[in-house]
């Protein structure tokens, strides 16, 4: 929640990260402007990996370091991660994302409350103005920002959550199955937004349960099997067959 100028992102370095006991360590680097996909059969470590990057789960070994212009910060916990410029969009929107009793505007602002204050008190106008920027950017269809968030469609709720994460002006955005339960039209809006963010120099890590989505969106995919990176596929080698065979542990 710390106020900071948008940092100049230089990359995320993951060194010898162990996500489960007995699994071999993972060393990876995520560059600015890169969209990296995480694939794998459910429960093979890709979600754990993403949560460790977000600081939500403690790693069993190794380190995660965020390189910013002039400084590099080790990620040791969730709060540290948020303060350093890592934003995380949770998977289960209903259980971990939205506040059903709160308005669209409150749901948007909850991570960045201190930015709307004037002399310690919240300025509703400033909050509304900040929300409008993202509403425009993400084309959120919410007729009234003061209505409860549960009045929106699933896709629009997801956009509000994305707006909440983007309002942190993160250096790197971690997305846990962001298009789950989202309609096709909204998906394409989200894809467009993701590409735009990457073009602006943000790093994106997207966990997706749909291979087509990863192929469409990512330059590189890490396929997880038994809590290890079974394959790191990029470029022309990236296709449905190669990803699926890596998922099932067959030689490509």
């Amino acid at each position, binding site marked *: 929640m710390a106020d900071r100028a948008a940092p100049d992102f230089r990359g995320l370095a993951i060194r010898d990260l162990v996500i489960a006991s007995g699994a071999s360590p993972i060393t990876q680097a995520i560059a600015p402007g890169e969209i990296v996909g995480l694939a794998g059969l459910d429960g093979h470590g890709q979600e754990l990996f993403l949560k460790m990057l977000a600081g939500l789960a403690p790693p069993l070994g190794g380190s995660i370091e965020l390189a910013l212009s002039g400084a590099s910060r080790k990620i040791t916990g969730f709060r540290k991660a948020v303060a350093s410029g890592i934003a995380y969009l949770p998977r289960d929107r209903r259980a971990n994302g939205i*506040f059903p009793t709160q308005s669209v505007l409150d749901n948007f602002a909850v991570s960045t409350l201190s930015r709307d204050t004037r002399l310690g008190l919240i300025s509703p106008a400033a909050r509304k103005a900040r929300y409008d920027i993202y509403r425009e950017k993400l084309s959120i269809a919410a007729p009234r920002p003061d209505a409860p968030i549960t009045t929106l469609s699933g896709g629009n709720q997801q956009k509000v959550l994305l707006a909440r994460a983007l309002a942190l002006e993160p250096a790197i955005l971690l997305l846990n199955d962001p298009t789950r339960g989202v309609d096709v039209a909204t998906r394409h809006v989200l894809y467009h937004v993701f590409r735009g963010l990457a073009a602006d120099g943000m790093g994106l890590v997207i966990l997706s349960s749909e291979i087509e989505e990863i192929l469409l969106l990512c330059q590189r995919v890490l396929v997880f099997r038994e809590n290890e990176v079974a394959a790191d596929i990029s470029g022309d080698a990236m296709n449905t067959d190669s990803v699926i065979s890596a998922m099932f542990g067959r030689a490509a």
Partner: protein
Amino acid sequence: MSQISRLLSLGRSIGFAVVLLVVLLAVNLILSPGRFQPGSWGALVGLAAPLIGAAIASTPVILAGRGGIDISVGPLMGFVNAMVIQVLFLKAGISSPLLLVPAALLIGALIGAANGFLATIVRIQPIVATLGTYLILTGVTLTILPAPIGPAPVWLKALAGPWSMLPLALMFIAWWLVRRTPYYDQLMAVGSDDRAAYTAGVDVTRVRFIAYVMTGIFGGCAGLMLTALIGSADPNIGPTYTLIAIAAVALGGVSLAGGRGGVAGAAIGAIDIFLLQSVLTTFNVSTFVLQIAYGAILVLAVMLTALQERLAMRGR
């Protein structure tokens, strides 16, 4: 437009309490017009104030969710009552409001912090933690004040008469300011869904801890209002406020699951109970029947609120 919709949504959440308020007010005006004349408003508000204060005090921790509750609000009021009159006024000879009021609020804040420590940092279930405080405070109050004693400073008694609106107004202004701080949004987010709040970067423990401290401060204020009303110190009155205050909060549409409702609803719920009491006493009904009536109204109100919500969900 947004003002109207906000009023409407406020009306929806505390709808039944408002309807009950209007009905009870009308019945009271017909039955005993003399009691409700403008000249006696000061005393009337003073009579209702401790319950309204107790209901307001109970609200922040309930809003914070996950079983958040403070049943020590009543004994805290009794403890403040005993401390202010017996220890500070009669024994130490302090009578200035500039010292007694901060002292009462400080006592409240400290007890609230103790409750908050137990419930959020040690993580004892709130109802058990505050039950402990309930018993301790009741015992300590009886130790320092075995029997009722008086009097109270003159300025304090005036707070139950002509100036009875003042402490209530200050509580509302304090809450209004809280509502405009970032803290309020965090409180409602935590009450609505604490896991989501954590994932959104909210310091859940800190938010809940502050809610307990706020409840304590408001409880200290309610203790002063109680002292003003009885004009003395009585070790046995305070604890009786706890359960009635929680009834008032529930009646006022504050969800005991957290994240829904507010201080205004709790206050209206408290006024409802006060007016109900007033109607029934005009009929010379015994206090036992009074209890039955509170219970019946409470169950009815909570049922109607649940029904209303279910219908609203179906409408979507």
